């Protein structure tokens, strides 16, 4: 490992002060933080989607085949949001999916004043749904190392790769990239550089096996078991060849299995310099793969997490107890009829994990979907937001039908024809969302109702981002067959914070996988640049740390994927910084004036 150390603190120049001033002006414009919100016990979030110009509604795909009525109950999916600053103006934009036939996907450009302009059609990324493909998820990453965010639309069918042309438009390059050579029922993807060659690779998670869902050749494409199903789609690893093309390396990497994958999460579990994988799997065993550092992985599931028969929906990594190790949060199904409970896998440091969901109070979130770590009150401890709910429909409950199926003897579950149509029935619907406030790494308490984050829509994805660059993390939530929700964080704690935007030079330009250790007020936290962890959503690439009452950052250490290490000391909090791999000087993060950016694009 080539390790270099650079220790130099940034002295903010006049330009940096101007930027900070601009941000402050923007913050002061709209909406003002209400006096009431300053009071303890008041809500610290405002739902502002409509005011922000976000008014689209997701719609699930209705299939037109012999199994359409049955499939309807199992495809209330595809409501995803992916945050990324695609135009490089310093304000986080986002892409949102719908799934209905010929439904338009949406690209929302951040106007810099907490409003957004939808530009999907103009940008050329709207057409993600047709008679042969249904959008399921989306992900921003830089596939050609040109420094611009490209877009991957993950689909049941063939996924789409859009190259960012740098002028607000995109060009589809799926075919040239070699990504549409095989039909996959992909529901999730992450980008990370598993072999550390400086290019971001793509790992797809596939739900159904590669049966064409739009025209199935067999009725045997449903899960063969509720707890040990091995007839799902597994994962597909596309290695980035560095020339704009990708090669399927799933087998060579040792990642071939056939579970019903719902989510993927990467992080360096053992701090050995390469990222390991947690795979959340429906109808059975989640998987944990250890990166061998040579382009292959070893399945360490049994040793790491043991036997699991649950319905894994989400995999997000974060160090909830500030012990320096990345832990994993996995949602499962917990309702009165089935008490699986979520996993909060505490990293033991030896590539094993202990589930502490019960003792930390994070066990029961209903029919869980995305669950994301983030520090909403900047107190230096990662909180959790979890969305849930499968289908909220009529008064009749589908659980009776499904349990009739479960308790029927000798039923071939893989045969879709044996599953009861859901019709207008409800299953685990109308569930309140959960905002878990972290009580210093030992206990989480639900603060969702207080902060107005307890929607009962059928939530799917959560993107965490600082849309107004004010140092307070906002939330964007996608909902199935409903509108998204945008929660602006207006918390008045006065706690300090810091954000880092990393730019790789030897590493991939987005610095995905880079780890950061921040020491402030005597407490050290670790974070990393993640390439899309968490169900149906991607959070901002910038790395945020809450610092509590600390007024000085004693130390920042960055471990780049290339192996380079850099250390900086004596940084000021409440600022955004740019760290460039190999550069000894840390830079101020400089958003472009929104009006200027808007004029440039139009």
């Amino acid at each position, binding site marked *: 490992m080539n390790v270099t150390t650079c220790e130099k603190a940034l002295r903010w120049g006049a330009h940096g002060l101007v930027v900070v001033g601009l941000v402050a002006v923007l913050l002061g414009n709209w909406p003002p933080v209400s006096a009431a919100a300053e009071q303890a016990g008041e809500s610290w979030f405002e739902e502002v989607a409509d005011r922000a110009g976000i008014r689209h509604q997701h719609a699930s795909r209705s299939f037109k085949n012999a199994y359409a009525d049955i499939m309807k109950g199992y495809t209330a999916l595809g409501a995803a949001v992916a945050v990324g600053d695609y135009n490089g103006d310093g304000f986080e934009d986002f892409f949102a999916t719908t799934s209905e036939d010929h439904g338009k996907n949406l690209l929302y450009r951040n106007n810099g004043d907490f409003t957004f302009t939808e530009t999907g059609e103009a940008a050329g990324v709207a057409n993600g749904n047709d008679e042969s493909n249904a959008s399921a998820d989306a992900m921003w990453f830089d596939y050609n190392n040109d420094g611009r965010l490209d877009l991957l639309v993950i689909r049941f069918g063939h996924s789409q790769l859009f190259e960012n042309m740098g002028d607000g438009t995109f060009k589809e390059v799926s075919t040239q990239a070699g990504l549409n050579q095989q039909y996959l029922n992909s529901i999730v993807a992450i980008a990370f550089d598993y072999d550390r060659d400086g290019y971001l690779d793509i790992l797809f998670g596939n739900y159904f096996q590669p049966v064409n869902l739009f025209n199935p050749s067999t009725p045997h494409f449903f899960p063969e078991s509720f707890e040990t199903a091995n007839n799902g789609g597994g994962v597909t690893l596309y290695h980035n060849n560095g020339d704009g093309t990708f090669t399927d390396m799933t087998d060579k990497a040792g990642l071939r299995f056939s579970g019903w994958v719902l989510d993927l999460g990467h992080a360096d579990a053992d701090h050995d310099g390469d990222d390991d994988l947690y795979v959340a799997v429906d109808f059975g065993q989640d998987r944990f793969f250890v990166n061998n550092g040579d382009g292959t992985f070893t399945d360490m599931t049994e040793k790491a997490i043991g036997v699991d028969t649950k319905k894994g929906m989400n995999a997000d990594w974060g160090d909830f107890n500030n012990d320096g190790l990345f832990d994993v949060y996995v949602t499962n199904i917990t309702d009165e*009829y089935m008490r*699986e409970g979520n996993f909060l896998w505490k990293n033991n440091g030896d590539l094993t994990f202990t589930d502490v969901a019960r003792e930390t109070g994070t066990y029961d979130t209903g029919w869980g979907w995305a669950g994301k770590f983030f520090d909403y009150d900047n107190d230096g401890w990662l909180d959790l937001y979890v969305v849930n709910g499968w289908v909220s429909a009529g008064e009749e*409950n589908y659980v*009776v039908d499904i349990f009739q199926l479960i308790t029927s003897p000798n039923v071939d579950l893989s045969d879709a024809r044996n599953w009861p149509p859901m019709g207008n029935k409800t299953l685990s619907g109308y569930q309140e969302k959960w905002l878990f406030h972290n009580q210093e790494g030992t206990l989480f308490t639900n603060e969702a109702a207080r902060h107005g984050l307890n929607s009962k829509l059928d939530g799917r994805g959560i993107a965490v981002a600082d849309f107004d660059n004010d140092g307070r993390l906002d939330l964007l939530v996608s909902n199935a067959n409903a509108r998204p929700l945008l929660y602006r964080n207006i918390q008045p704690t006065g706690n300090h914070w810091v954000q880092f935007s990393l730019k790789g030079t030897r590493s991939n330009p987005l610095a995905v996988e880079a780890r950061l250790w921040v020491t402030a007020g005597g407490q050290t936290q670790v974070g990393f640049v993640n390439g899309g962890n968490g169900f149906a959503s991607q959070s901002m690439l910038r790395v945020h740390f809450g610092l509590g009452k600390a007024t000085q950052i004693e130390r920042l250490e960055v471990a780049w994927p290339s192996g380079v290490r850099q250390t900086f000391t004596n940084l000021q909090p409440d600022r955004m910084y740019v760290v460039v791999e190999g550069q000894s000087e840390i830079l101020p993060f400089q958003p472009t004036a929104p009006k200027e950016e808007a004029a440039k694009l139009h």
Partner: protein
Amino acid sequence: MRWIAAVVVTAALGLFGSAQAQEAESLFQEAVQATQVADYEAALTKFEAALQADPNNLRYGNEYRLTGVKINQVKTYDRCIAFFKQLVADHPKAPNAWMNLGYAYVDKIPTEGAITQVLLANTALGHFSTALDLEESWLGRYTRGNSYLYWPAIFGRTRWAIADLEKAVALSQETDKRNYQARAYRGLGEAYWRLNDLEKARQIWREALELFPDDKELPVLLGQDDKALNAFLTAHFEPGKRVDTNVSALWEDTASQAWLGQDDKVPPAPAPIQVETGRHVDTTEGEISGKAN
């Protein structure tokens, strides 16, 4: 109580005291002793031999299963289930063998995933029903009614629980009062809790407390406000928790408060049975029938 009467009849027909019964009891005692020295493999084998000699012996089956719970390995639960399945196949008219088969499925529940737990619970219910079809009993009614309580109200089984538990209460009123009979009253109140009728639930528990003033569980149920009671019983009926299937209270000290029902703790092993050399001490159902009648 016809099931007890059946045991009496069985005894009267000559099994009790017969060579076969003595052999069964001897094997059972050897099994118990093996358990006491933690020689579980030998204990299980001896218990099985005892049950093959006396398949309808509830107590033998109870101790056999509890030994399996003590070992707490999937393969042991599977062994118990397989053994009882064969036992009922060989002796389909033995209600207590069916009861033990049902309990064996319940014993395995904590080792499985949520869906398999449902399948195990549902299968157990079927076996309790078979036992009841063969022979009406307080134990059968209480067990099946209590099992229905684990199903959320949406499944419509709470009404069936009420029917079974009301029958269990009625059966208990036909006999001398025993402490364990309070459990049916508790379950009946819990069924009304399932239906969100806390007033009715508390009314039943209050009436039960008058009948069983020494019961330790009833004051706990009655001493909680609505919110606390909901939390308590929701946790109590958490699917997947270990249900205490130890039915030894039926033949142990009638003044005891041994609990037939649910607890996530593994029950303590029954007290060692004292056997005086040269004297046969029967502590099986026959003794229960003698006390009950």
